[in-house]
């Protein structure tokens, strides 16, 4: 019996609860109608609400408890099993977390063995590391282990499995009891006088509030997940060196130079070039479209510029690597064969390549934000300026732009924040060499590129080379958040209220 209940998986449990909820809906509705002898006008709420009430009482407490249980159970089991691992099992250069993941893998392997029928449940409990070669046995059913299984690891794995089975059993029992209790309570309440609609609507409102709070949960999740691993990183690598050192050279021997300054330089350099391209073009395009252009030109040009915003950044990245890069090499490099006859640029990836393409990507961003802001300047200012005899360009330059300036500065800052956080264009277009140099024709790498390269491939979450990516991500998040907040502050502080 215990095996039956503990073997019930989470998916089956959810299905059972949902079926109970549906059954509860129909039963409660029937009961409510029966309590007023079928005359639904005598009910406080529509009959359906009594049903929804029952469905909520069944499903919501049970599902919430199940979710909390499933989140908490692994942590509790992990903390109790870790105590079983003796210090002697932790070899040189390893950590207790690595041994713990070995334990988990052995436990999962034993689960697979039982599921496939290669071992019986009792056999897994009586296994001993000295008598059986666990690694070979598991390899026979397709589970690969990195090293031989020692006695303490096997014991820990067996205890892990036992605790998980027990936990699952209790989870199933408690959730089922909650669901059935909810059903009983709701059915008892289903009488004509019960204010079902108020209860159901309060429940729905709570669900709406929880959905809205998901945004906060996401932000908290982002900050906490990066903070956690960054703390781990700063324990392994001094933070002064990370923020103020000058070299970025990770290597897996362990004595890496991991400092953010070269990456920050690359990021800022590329963003500056991108803004130098995007802001003049975007701003002038916005001014022309909102001030000078007739409705036909506007209807034609604005959507076309918006298309540039909808193109995925991987397309821009490929464009940078395969078209703009070679073109620039043709112009600035290749000695006698090139256009200028100079040999300043050797590779297709460079700051200029990535900066140019990122500028193209940002043009619609700057243009549409500026367009909105310029349109928001009231017509009376323009009319007053024309009335004094100014030409249209003088009006724009001396009246409208100063009035719209806070908004435009905000738009530029938002574009800068977008440029700093951009990944695909720089991964493909900027290269992997971390250096601090003023030459835009050289390859320089950025924060986002290094995050991608440190977290893909072989990742060992105990080494500083992998954990540095979290510290980089946290810095990037704080930087972009700061820019956005600063942009909002400037717009709010300096904007003129005209109406």
């Amino acid at each position, binding site marked *: 019996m215990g095996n039956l209940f503990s073997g019930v998986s989470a998916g089956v449990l959810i299905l059972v609860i949902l079926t109970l909820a549906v059954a509860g809906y129909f039963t409660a509705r029937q009961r409510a109608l029966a309590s007023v002898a079928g005359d639904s006008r005598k009910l406080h709420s529509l009959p359906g609400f009594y049903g929804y009430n029952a469905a909520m009482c069944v499903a919501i407490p049970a599902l919430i408890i199940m979710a909390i249980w499933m989140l908490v159970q692994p942590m509790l089991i992990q903390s109790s099993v870790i105590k079983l691992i003796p210090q002697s099992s932790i070899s040189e250069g390893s950590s207790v977390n690595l041994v713990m993941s070995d334990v988990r893998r052995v436990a999962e392997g034993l689960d697979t063995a039982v599921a496939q029928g290669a071992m019986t449940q009792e056999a897994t409990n009586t296994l001993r590391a000295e008598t059986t070669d666990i690694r070979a046995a598991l390899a026979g059913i397709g589970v690969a282990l990195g090293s031989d299984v020692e006695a303490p690891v096997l014991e820990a794995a067996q205890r892990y499995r036992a605790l998980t089975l027990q936990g699952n059993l209790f989870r199933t029992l408690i959730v089922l009891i909650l669901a059935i209790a909810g059903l009983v309570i709701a059915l008892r309440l289903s009488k004509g006088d019960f204010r079902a609609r108020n209860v159901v*609507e309060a429940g729905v*409102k709570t669900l709406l509030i929880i959905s809205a709070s998901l*945004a906060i949960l996401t932000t908290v999740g982002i900050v906490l997940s990066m903070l956690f691993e960054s703390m781990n990183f700063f324990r392994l690598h001094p933070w002064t060196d990370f923020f103020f050192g000058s070299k970025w050279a990770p290597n897996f021997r362990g004595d890496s130079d991991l400092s953010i300054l070269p990456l920050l330089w690359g990021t800022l350099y590329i963003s500056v070039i991108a803004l130098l391209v995007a802001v003049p073009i975007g701003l*002038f395009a916005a001014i022309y479209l909102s001030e000078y252009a007739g409705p036909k030109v506007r209807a034609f040009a604005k959507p076309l510029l918006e298309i540039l915003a909808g193109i995925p950044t991987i*397309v821009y990245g490929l464009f940078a690597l395969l078209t703009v890069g070679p073109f620039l090499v043709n112009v600035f490099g290749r000695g006698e064969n090139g256009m200028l006859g100079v040999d300043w640029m050797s590779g297709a990836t460079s700051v200029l390549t990535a900066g140019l393409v990122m500028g193209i990507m940002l043009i619609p961003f700057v243009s549409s934000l500026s367009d909105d802001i310029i349109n928001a300047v009231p017509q009376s200012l323009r009319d007053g300026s024309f009335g004094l005899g100014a030409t249209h360009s003088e009006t724009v330059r001396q009246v409208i732009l100063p009035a719209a300036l806070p908004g435009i500065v905000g738009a530029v800052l938002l574009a800068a924040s977008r440029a700093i956080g951009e990944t695909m264009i720089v991964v493909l277009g900027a290269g992997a060499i971390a250096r601090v140099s003023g030459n835009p024709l050289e390859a320089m790498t950025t924060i986002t590129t290094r995050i991608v390269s440190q977290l893909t491939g072989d990742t060992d979450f105990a080494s500083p080379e992998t954990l540095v990516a979290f510290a980089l991500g946290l810095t990037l998040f704080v930087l972009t958040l700061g820019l956005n907040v600063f942009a909002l502050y400037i717009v709010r502080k300096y904007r003129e209220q005209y109406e």
Partner: protein
Amino acid sequence: MTDMPISGAKPHGGSLLTQDDHTKKRNRAEARFKAYGIVAIVLGLLMLVILLTTIIGRGTGAFQQTFVTLEVPLLAEKLDKKGNRDIEDIKKVSTFGYAPLMRAAMEQKVAQTVGETTLSGKEMAALLSKDAAAQLRNFVLVNPDQIGETVEFEFLAQSRVDGYLKGRVSRDEIANDKNINIAQLDLVDVLVAGGSIVKRFNLSFITGSDASDARPEAAGMGVAMLGSLFMMLVVLVLALPIGVAASIYLEEFAPKNWITDIIEVNISNLAAVPSIVFGILGLAVFINYMHLPNSAPLVGGLVLTLMTLPTIIISTRASLKSVPPSIRDAALGVGASKMQSVFHHVLPLAAPGILTGTIIGLAQALGETAPLLLIGMVGFIASNPPETIAEGLMSPNSAMPAQIYEWAKRADPAFYERAWGGIIILLVFLISMNAIAVLLRRRFERRW
């Protein structure tokens, strides 16, 4: 009273009918300013045109592939040694065993068309893709009764041959190339003239699975498309209800206090967070903490849901705001509760706007690459299409943008061409989704 100054100097303005220098300068400045604006717009549109022509020019080549027509005698003594057509015995013959058959077929074809040649059988067979033996074997396993017959096949040609016919590979550049030599190219020319080698539309680029580094000619986008489809399914199922629920709360029910302010600030901040930070979140929470499978479309879908949520919330709030208050008041007037008025009256009327906002949000999510790289979808060869929905969600797969990035990383011009072709497919999806959104908006738009 005139404007004439006491000193008797000429008035500054002069006549309205003749322009003086100052006015001319101002008019010239005006014309220059206008020209700047036009130049800016033209530059922007020029970039768009260059981008699109590059994509189409470089990518359409990927939809055509070179095929070699060969008659291959399926010799029974090589494929079915025992002679009893037992499928298990036939399966034991690996692709290694099929290679001599193809070599023989190739030699025969060359003998028929060219006659004498200096190439060895191995060099002749090297014109075919390394995938060809697998294709032959699959055919034999499905039709074991054809053993002993001579069947005509269309095999993929090797990527250098394909490149030669597309202009990518030229005779002067292959001196150091170990995959092809001049004599083989001569043979290709003869076979093309004879009609045995053709370049035609290749459907398996769109529907097939990815292939390894050595076989760019066999690489296809189909499995990655399925991965993207499953991810979009997850995003739709999760982001739409949660986004609409959050918008309804913020728009209709939220009181004006500091908690609501914090929620709104959070949503607008999340819309501006770089996508790679979401990737880090996905890695840390979904893969490391919740131990979901690496590079599964489910994990990708969860990360993209978090990214699309702010977009959907913002567009849903705009649609809800556009429903006039008279509708709400009328519903309350006939006795509905606030919740009933929102769900039965406001929401259905705002539905078209919500739908278009969702489609646009999905289109943005389709093109995202950076978070997918961090959850493991890079360096993965998507070779087998998933069989069931559960497998499609949980087994490792690739996605369209990640596949394009993977092809771009392989640094082979044949793969670059396929990356451009993949971009064309991706853009076709995006354009159609955006067009559907615009059409729906125009069809269902109501003017209040």
